[in-house]
Each structure stands twice: as C-alpha cells, then as structure tokens.
C-alpha cells in the first residue's frame, strides 16, 4: 500500500504529558503504575493514572463536553504541538478534507456512573443531562468540535484494538481520495465500569502487571490519550510512516484468545503484505502483552513462531497499564518513538520471561536503530489489529 506520513503524534498517560516524558520513562525503565486510589469503593490493584485531570476542567466554550475523558482528550491534544499541526493540515486541505477517527472503550461512561451516584429522583442530575456525553461517540464528537474539523467522523469501539483500527480506516479514506488527512487516536479514562468489570472477570492483578512473566497475575488498568496526524508522504517526506496494517477476527471466544493465535497470525501476515516487507525486516514489535495468563502465552508463541530471533520485542503495559481503547494509539506512539529515537523499550515488570519468547523479549531498554516496527492490539471478542511503521525510506 502507499505509505502514509505520521506528520505529528503525541501521548499522555501515567508516564506524563507528551512524547519527551514517555521517551524518558521508557529509557530509564521508570513505570507509572501506583496503588489504586481512584475507585469510589476500595479495590486492591494498581492503576496508571494521569495526574491533575481533576484540576483541568474544559473551558467555558466546551463546558457541555466536560468530563474526565474529554479533559484527557483536550490535554492530550495540547502536547507536542499536535493541535497546531492539525490546524496547519486543516488550513492546507480544507476543514472538510480532514477525518476524525477515534477509538475508545470507556467513552465518557465515567460521567454516566457519576450521574447514577447522585440521581435526581428517577432522573440523572440536571448538570449531567447532556446526551452527547452518554455515548461512546462523545470523544470523537468533542475532538471534531474542538479542532473544528468537518470531514468524516466516527468512533470505533472494539475494546483493546479500537485505536489501532482507526489507523487502517484513515489509510483507506486517504487512499481513496475522500480526505487528505486524518486525526486518529484514542482516549480511555479510569472509571468504575472497567475496574470492577475486569475485576468480576478475575483478570485484574493485585500487583503491578507483569507482562510475559511466568508469575503474571493479570492486568493493571490505565488511562491515556494518544493521537496521530496521518497525511500522504509528500506532506512530510522525512516523517516516520504507517506502512501497513492487518485486521482479523479470532472467531473463537468472547474473552479468551484463539489458542493457536490464528487471528494474530492473520493480522501480522496482512500487515507485512501491505508493507511489502518480510518478517526478517522487523526490528521491533510492541506486543499487546496484557499480562493475562492467556494472552501472553499465546502471544509469546506467536512471536517465536512468526518473527526471527533478531526481532526485539516488549510490552509497554508495565509502564502505563492496559489503557484499553487508548492502547492502540499510545502504543503506536511508543513504537514511533522506537524508530525516531533509536529506543527499544524494555519489557517492564518481567523477571522470568515465558520461555517461548525469552530470546526476543527485551527485558531492559536498549539503544538500538529501529527502521521497521510493529504494534499489536488484540481486543476482547477476538478483534485483532497489527500496525506496521517504518523510518522514511526504509521500505520500498
């Protein structure tokens, strides 16, 4: 496929605000997980919380959209000159020629939860009777309004693959000529639903998550905002590129992955085919690596089976937690950092790696040139995405 330039990108999470904060944390292997102090009732686990959101109300112009998720979206858009880069693209192409494609699993459900805690009789409290908030589309609707973009606008909510799939959607729209640029990304925020929901599924670790460790005990939940601006390569010839993607379904079970990683293999195959590269060319893969027993054993086998011994690999969920609907976007950002800054993030939280992938798993961060990198996002219901990124000129 014709590659797309990632003209701008940004990430905000428990590691801090913006790419420099993330690169520093990854280089020093300093994670952002802390004991859960978020939920209304106690739940002993670790979370990746973005500091300061409580103090960052949206301004008067956006008061109707105000909620934790949109605050984090706004905060994320202000980092790394991202909003300014989008404005330049909108000016260059026309506001209707820029798409807004967002992934989220929480949307603003935290606002709905809050409303149920202080009901006005049988109704939501008056200050939260805002229909736009009580929808997953709240995020995309807010981002389109805040950036004043008038092109196609859609929310993807496929659990953990949501904000990876939006990269693929953007590529198709740009390739067809429907738009000239796309703002893609994802924002998910801490809320009672995900904390107690995943707890009910017995998938939450009582300790900071340990991706690929033999003694791993489940996920740590995090919140994050990640965004990327995609345009044709002529707009930014030296920028890193989206060179491929693959999407597939496991068709196996709602909450456990295909035991032979069938869907993950299909997604990889498609991503490499679109990129026109062989598996041997992959320098780094950012693994989905949630630290559930099932995901990590299947993914370790996938890594060993499909990628060569020279490929370095890590999960970064030990730093940020599993940011669910935002995971695709912020892990794309960290994969791009690997290319831009020659940094393979170490797989924080792992001391005794799964045997299958031990040779390829980077337990410590490495200074290493990365030309071609992949990012995996495998969602609930067996919804898989694999993104391929490359340094400008590294692939045909």
């Amino acid at each position, binding site marked *: 496929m014709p590659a797309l330039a990632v003209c701008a990108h940004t990430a905000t999470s428990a590691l801090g605000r913006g790419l420099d904060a993330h690169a520093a944390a990854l280089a020093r292997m300093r994670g952002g997980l802390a004991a859960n102090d978020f939920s209304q009732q106690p739940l002993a686990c670790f979370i990746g919380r973005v500091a300061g959101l409580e103090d960052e109300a949206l301004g008067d112009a956006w008061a109707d959209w105000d909620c934790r998720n949109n605050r984090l979206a706004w905060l994320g858009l202000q980092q790394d000159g991202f909003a300014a880069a989008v404005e330049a693209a909108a000016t260059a192409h026309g506001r209707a020629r820029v798409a807004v494609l967002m992934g989220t699993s929480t949307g603003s459900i935290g606002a709905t939860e809050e409303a149920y805690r202080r009901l006005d009789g049988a109704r*939501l409290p008056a200050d939260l009777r805002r229909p736009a908030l009580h929808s997953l589309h709240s995020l995309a609707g807010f981002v389109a309004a805040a950036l004043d973009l008038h092109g196609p606008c859609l929310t993807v909510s496929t659990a953990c693959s949501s904000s990876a799939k939006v990269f693929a959607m953007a590529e198709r729209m740009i390739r067809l000529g429907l738009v000239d640029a796309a703002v893609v990304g994802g924002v998910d925020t801490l809320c009672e639903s995900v904390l107690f929901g995943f707890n009910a599924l017995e998938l939450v670790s009582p300790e900071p998550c340990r991706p690929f460790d033999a003694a791993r005990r489940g996920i740590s939940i995090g919140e994050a905002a990640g965004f990327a601006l995609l345009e044709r390569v002529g707009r930014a010839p030296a920028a890193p590129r989206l060179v491929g993607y693959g999407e597939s*379904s496991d068709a196996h079970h709602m909450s456990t992955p295909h035991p032979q990683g069938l869907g993950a293999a299909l997604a990889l195959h498609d991503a490499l085919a679109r990129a026109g590269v062989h598996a041997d060319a992959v320098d780094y893969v950012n693994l989905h690596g949630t630290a559930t027993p099932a995901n990590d054993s299947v993914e370790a086998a996938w890594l060993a089976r499909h990628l060569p011994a020279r490929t370095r690999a890590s999960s970064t969920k030990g730093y940020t937690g599993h940011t669910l609907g935002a995971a695709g976007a912020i892990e794309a950002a960290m994969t791009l950092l690997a290319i831009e800054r020659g940094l393979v993030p170490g797989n924080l939280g792992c001391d005794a790696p799964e045997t299958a992938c031990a040779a390829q798993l980077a337990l410590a961060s490495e200074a290493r040139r990365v030309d071609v990198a992949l990012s995996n996002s495998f969602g609930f219901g067996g919804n898989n995405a694999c993104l391929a990124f490359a340094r400008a000129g590294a692939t045909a």
Partner: protein
Amino acid sequence: MNGKPVTALNVWVEGIGAWAPGIPDWAHLRALLRDQAAGPDAGAPARPTPAALPPGERRRAPVGVLIAIEAAAQAVAMSGRDAATLPCIFASAHGDAGIMDYMCATLAQTPREMSPTRFHNSVHNAAAGYWTIAAACHAASTAVSARAESFGASLLEAAVQVAAEGQAVLLVASDVPGAGPLGEMIDSTEPFGCALVLAPAASAATVARLDLFLHSASGATAARHPHAQALAATNLSARGLPLLEALAAAGTATLDLPASPTLGLTIHTEVNP
C-alpha cells in the same frame, strides 16, 4: 503530490436484512413499505431467535445482539455469500444501553456484585464477537458509532471498505431501548436492526446500485411511510429507513442522510428490476 479529491463512491447491494417488533424480516418490511396502509404484525415474536447462533447463545445473548445477528444473517443469506468471507461492520448509536443502566446502578451501590457476563456483553463489539464466532469469520470486524448520525457514518465506512479493498462487506445497524435514568439520554425507545451486504461490482446477486455523494451537511430526507416515520422517531439506527424505503421500491430515488453534524451523504439508488 496531492490526491485528486473524490466525493463519490459506488456500491452494489446484494443482501438486505431487517428486524423490528412485528416485522420479522426484510420481506415483511419491504411489503410494509410498499403499502402506505400496512402496519406491523401484532402476532410476531417479541424478540428474534436467529438460527445463526447456537441454541445456548440464543438463550443467553442480549436482545441487541439477537437483533443485529438476525438482520446480518438475513442479508448474508440473500446475498448468497459465505458469512465467513465477509468483513463486517456493526454500527450502533448507543450499544446495549440496558446493560449500561444495570452497570451504573450496580456500580453506584454494590460494585463488587457486577456480573462478569453482563460486563463482557456490554462491550460495543459484543454483537461483532458473537457473529464472527458463530460464522467462523476470521475477516476484519469492527463496531462503530457516530451517535445520532451512526447510520450514515457507518454506511460511509462500509462503502470505503468496499471501494478500498475491492471486496464485499456486511454492514449491520441496530439499536435497542435504554432503561432507567439513562434511557432519557439515548433517543431509542423501540428496538430496530437492519443489515446490508455491499459489493464492489454488479453481479447476478445485485439487488440495487447505490451512488454515495459526500458534501457539507444538508439535512435528512424523511421516511414516507407512517410506520417508518414512527420507527425512525424511536430508534437511531432506523434513521436509515429512507434508504430501505428506496430499496423496497422499484426504479430510482435520491435521498439525503447525515454522516456527521458537518457532513452529508446524498444517495442515489437504482433498484434492479
């Protein structure tokens, strides 16, 4: 080098599915839409029981999933294609708002009593998951929303996938009523679902051709049939009914559907004789 702006997409409809109370399938909806005096069948089952799901899932799945899968199965059957080969898009303005009410009420009182099954059924891609499992479909699947403009935005995404990849795609749009205090916020008070199989070229299975034109938003064509108007007023996915009306009729038609607050679609339809 800038691409030449493209503002039109063409797709060929090969299959249509539908379900609403008293309207168990597309044949019933089509007959109703062609007769201004016709109404829903009062004796029809209150919820669908799609054969596409195994019996256990049919019993346990939420009604929103049943409606989506029923419509999907009808459309795929009509197209003659193998469900396992079709990338699929499941669109819903609000997903399962009934489960959201349950979750928020439970979280406000006794969060540790959250049902794990209801939680995993609350994800927006629950129907997509159930469908791909039942159909043994390994192709790409997605679940989308654009709230009030979900139908138009998801139709656009489906057309993009068809045109970009040169392959047929299954599109499903469904919504269910909410419950409790959240119900007031979600604009759907009756259930409805519909589905289309869209293909990149004409074939022996073609039912109609759709030409989609993108432009700045310009309002929405209203449904003509009184019952279609009632459905569209009580369900956000039913805002696609003007398109289904055009597909139920003979000949050609033109209608407008919003794809976002700032983007509109004009759809020119040509139904095969």
